[in-house]
């Protein structure tokens, strides 16, 4: 507790929560979109592809601004979600998670997509001849084979979510305990004289967490690969 103050620890906890949720909640959609882009041919495929990549191309502030306009309380989606489901994203940690998820989405999708493309379609064909319908082929053959890719995509997304700043602060502001993630806290420290020390301490915590996740994922996927190689 001496290393960081209570408000900073709060930011760390919130960042972890936001990044975890952003990753986990977007994973199913990420897998679906990656699969669609890798294996299906449908009109609008390239439009979907472009859409997925937008957050990467745009300056984060713009993404945050667009989110604010769309999902703010007064925005069309924000109002709709609040009225119909009672879900409020604006200025809540859920909004931070949404921003992080959207910013990380292109990375997640690309990683998963590449790993799907690496799966030999001949194996999927073999599964089909054995009676597996498309969804079953996916669940029993493709999915297990791309687990390392999914893991890689998820961790990449998690890491990006941990570092996301521009879109988050623009969309959900920087409210301690609600939307103040580690990067926003770092930003706030850097805006005033003498805040660098505290900022660097936060940077170190954030590096430790994200690198820890990264190493864990490497370790797991090495093990999975080794198991498949029969060693």
């Amino acid at each position, binding site marked *: 507790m001496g290393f960081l103050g209570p408000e900073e620890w709060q930011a760390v906890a919130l960042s972890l929560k936001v990044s975890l949720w952003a990753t986990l909640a977007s994973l199913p959609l990420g897998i679906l979109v990656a699969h669609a882009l890798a294996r299906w041919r449908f009109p609008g495929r390239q439009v979907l592809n472009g859409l997925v990549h937008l957050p990467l191309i745009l300056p984060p502030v713009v993404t945050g601004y667009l989110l604010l306009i769309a999902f703010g309380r007064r925005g069309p989606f924000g109002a709709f979600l609040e009225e119909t489901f009672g879900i409020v994203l604006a200025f809540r940690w859920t909004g931070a998670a949404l921003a992080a998820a959207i910013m990380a989405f292109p990375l997640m999708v690309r990683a998963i997509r590449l790993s799907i493309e690496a799966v030999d379609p*001949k*194996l999927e*064909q*073999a*599964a*089909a*001849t*054995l*009676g*597996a*319908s*498309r969804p*079953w*082929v996916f669940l*029993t*053959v493709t999915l*297990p*084979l791309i687990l390392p890719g999914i893991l890689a995509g998820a961790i990449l997304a998690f890491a990006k979510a941990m570092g996301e700043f521009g879109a988050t602060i623009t969309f959900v502001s920087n409210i301690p305990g609600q939307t103040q993630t580690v990067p926003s806290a770092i930003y706030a420290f850097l805006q005033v004289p003498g805040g660098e020390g505290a900022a660097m301490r936060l940077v170190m915590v954030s590096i430790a967490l994200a690198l820890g996740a990264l190493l864990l994922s490497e370790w797991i996927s090495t093990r999975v690969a080794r*198991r*498949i*190689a*029969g*060693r």
Partner: protein
Amino acid sequence: MSLSIAIRHAFAGFSLDVSFQAPPGVTALFGRSGAGKTTVVNAVAGLFRPDAGRVAVNGWEMFDTAAGRWLPPHRRHLGYVFQEGRLFPHLTVRQNLTYGRWFAGGPRDAAEVARIVAMLGIDRLLDRRPAALSGGEKQRVAIGRALLSHPRLLLMDEPLAALDEARKAEILPYLERLRDQTDIPILYVSHSVTEVARLATTVIALESGRVVKQGPAAEVLADPQAVPALGVREAGSVLAGRVLRHDPDGLSEIAVSAGRFFLPQVAAEPGAQVRIRIEAQDVILSRGRPEGLSALNILPATVSEVRRGTGPGVMVQLRAGDDLILARITRRSADLLGIAPGMTCFCIVKSVAIARRNVGLIRGDAV
């Protein structure tokens, strides 16, 4: 007709136009490398969608361009043994084996798995993953996987090519039983006439994407005209017979229409029907009944057709009882012996020359 296939497709540089009907049993697709065998099988499996055609199994239409019908592979209920294995690398051998059963929804008979595992000799391997298997081991697992999926049609693309003789000899009887005891039609691709003769009910010979010969196995195989398509070394005829008894010295006596045949230990009860493939090159012809020879099988026969090619060999078709026998002899011998249609002579065949794999069972009386 159990199997009705018509497929037309044009690749750049290769066009396929194959159409045939086949009765129940094993339909062998025979032809040289690149003739189009795998392509036909893939079209039947639904893995490849040809420009035009129709595929039906036991009247069940899986594909028909005229009617705009196209069943996806997983709705076709096929067991496909691929030329290159295609095992699931992330599953153990056991999981690979039971993969198709899972979808077949049929009875989950543990004994069935055990039986097939034992037959294929893969008990030791059940907990390994495919990466740790040898080439032949992989192929055996692939066969087991297809068999265990309770298919309505079995597609086998050179399934035994990677296996050694001993293993082939162990697996062939099982395929025979499949053919005889179930209604599952089998479409079987092979380069080996031995396998074809032993298993096939119907033979379809392909050449450059066209059917050049088709018909019941016994007919196609004993047809001197078919020899070029099958390859001279592989010519031979098939005799039907019935097991009479097993002698204590290890020989089995078989009644054939022209007399009695001796074969080493046939694995069937007395009374069982068998088919015996006699390779044309294993038949010696003699004007008189020879004496003092180590060959036990000597059948009287009448020459029905003589086909001389450009080479040193002559293909002679003989009628022995109700059966046709094909003999390949040198032109010189044919001239010396004066072989001509109508002439009677004796066919000499060594018992041991008829490999066990050349003796097949009909209607599952196997022991």
